């Protein structure tokens, strides 16, 4: 049995940084998954991430990323791509720690065999702002990449018979819509 974790990463109060958690809410409201799939909005878990990784055989991370593309473009990263960046020396406790977390999990032998990160290029990170138009529009593509990965892993996922609106409680514009 393959246990799959699909995790949104990012701060929902900081505009496009919340793209991953937003996509999780959409997945929750529109799709049914096999019982081995866990959906989670992990916020910005920093060095707690290895704990979440350790419980899964395969992980799909949805995270905002900065790779120089246009806002709303998507890039896929596998384990090796992430490990290629050297971890940074850290001055404070909670700097972004994706690379460290993955490197730590690898050293501990708890890194899931499959790891895909779907990176979303953002443009607007002001506190309290909703997703930028470009990032909002790329959400269906993110969902599509998640479904393809699940298909590759041979994990069941189907659109719900009656999909509800995503419960994006932090976003006033979504709630109004």
């Amino acid at each position, binding site marked *: 049995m393959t246990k799959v974790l699909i995790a949104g990463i990012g701060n929902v109060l900081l505009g496009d940084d919340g793209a991953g958690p937003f996509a999780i809410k959409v997945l929750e409201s529109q799709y049914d998954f096999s019982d081995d799939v866990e959906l989670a909005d992990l916020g*910005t878990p920093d060095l*707690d991430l290895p704990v979440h990784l350790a419980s899964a055989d395969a992980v799909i991370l949805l995270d905002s990323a*900065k790779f120089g593309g246009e806002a709303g473009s998507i890039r896929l990263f596998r384990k090796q791509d992430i490990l290629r960046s050297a971890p940074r*020396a850290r*001055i404070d406790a*909670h700097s972004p720690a994706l690379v460290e977390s993955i490197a730590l999990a690898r050293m501990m032998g708890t890194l899931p065999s499959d790891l895909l990160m779907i990176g979303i290029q953002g443009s607007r990170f002001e506190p309290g702002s909703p997703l930028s138009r470009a990032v909002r529009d790329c959400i269906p593509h993110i969902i599509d990449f998640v479904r393809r990965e699940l298909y590759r892993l041979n994990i069941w996922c189907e659109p719900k018979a009656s999909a509800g609106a995503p419960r994006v409680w932090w976003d006033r514009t979504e709630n109004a819509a």
Partner: protein
Amino acid sequence: MTSRITIDPISRIEGHLRIDAEVDGGRVSKAWASCTMWRGIENILIGRDPREAWLFAQRFCGVCTTVHAIASVRAVEDALKLQIPPNAQYIRNLILIHHALHDHIVHFYHLSALDWIDVMQIPKADPAKTASLAQSLSSWTRNSPQEFKSAQDKVKALAASGQLGIFANGYWGHPAMHLPPEVSLLGFTHYLQALEFQRKSNQIVAILGGKTPHIQNMTVGGVGNAIDLDSLGTLTMDRLTMIRSLVDEVIPFVHEAYFPDVCAIAGMYPEWFDIGRGAGNYLAVPDLPTDSGASSFDLPGGVIFSGDLAVVKKFQTAADPDFRTAVTEDATRAWYKGGTLHPWKGQTVPEYTDFQEDGKYTWVKAPRYSGRPMEVGPLSNILVGYVQGHALTRKWTDLALDRISAVARRKVTVDQLQSTMGRYGARAIRSAMLADLAVKHCELLTNNILGGDVATHNPPQFSKGEIEGVGTHEAPRGTLSHWVVVKDGKLANYQAVVPTTWNASPRDSKGNIGPYEASLMRNPVADPERPLELLRTVHSFDPCMACACHTFDPDGREIATVKVL
């Protein structure tokens, strides 16, 4: 020769802590702490329902989620003068204790131990000698030669692969690193084990809070947990037993691995008890209330001024009348408009200039207490408790000082805890105390429920008009306070004065430097290109610039730059 060091780890999208220091003759002569991201996140809350504020507040920071949730509901309860049932106090306390234990363990092992342990020395250690050393320090059950050998093999494998992975950026071979290889291996082995115990501590938070990292059970007036000893889906006897057994697993790690490790490593770096004294003024609020009305606490609070450990002004309540009036935020040297304001009147209106060392240079305002810069954090917590004669604080502090002194072969005093190493010691002392209190609060909760009290919530009532409240919490990084103004049932103002704001505060209108800046003065710097000593002192506070974006940057590099002046 004077040189200027700038440590600015992430200078792209995310805002973080930047440290600038002028080094003259191998010692820091001037220092500036700057936060590079706007912290105007509280503005999101204005106009919202005070009952939902905690949901947003716990997103201020990705790791200190629970602490903001609790400070937020306490602020609204304070404004409403609303008491919460004893069960709600105990459940909140258990969440706070286990969040703090998790956080302190992660700080020591995963965020700062490698400032003191040279990983590249580990392959030289003798696992059998390490085991006998470890067994002489404590009765921890996982100090076998096999355990040390297996940890050492992990480092050897990384070194052999030529890809250091997680250790790629350390200051290995730095002249300020001088632990014997066996002690490095001991610390590193517990670094690996620590992951397991910080997870168990977090599991307790998840059981009580419904989920981590974002708990679901907070509510203004108490907690959302339904207690029914017989039914599923509520807080049952089974779950209470599960919590207790996790508590019983976490405590030995704290008392027999973390605490002795810190004492041993501190004793081997005794010179660091003479470096890094900060502002010398200490602030801690009382926490872990033991009754519904919060009239007594298991962690004491108060203030100490000018490093004078003969005098403490004790706080009787969670938001002492002095505390309510003494706190101000000074924006003179920060990128905001406005001068010095009380948090209830506080404004967050940005006014960005560049980094101007004689002008504005940070996104952090300067909180002051009766006009003075204050250090907050475990050191303040321990000193304030010790000076007022708090028994549990004295028990663990005296034990720590005895052990450190024995290793150092010289007397290390309470006064010397006012130092870089003292902050590490204080965090371990506080953890040892919290481990004792975990058992106590588990028993308080269980006994109260068995006594027939299942209440967890008193409903809040909002009426027309304006009310003000402050919610405090002695968080892992120190005193946190959320200040709310509620008008006709909606939030009219919201200000969070967070621990790192106190510690990372810039200069104020009178030119007083903040605690980080003060602690860096006179710090030695052996090699300006690799300013390990500055990181040790800054890390001793456990900085958290909070609320940061997380965006993954595949090309990101940390860099310390040095310029000869």
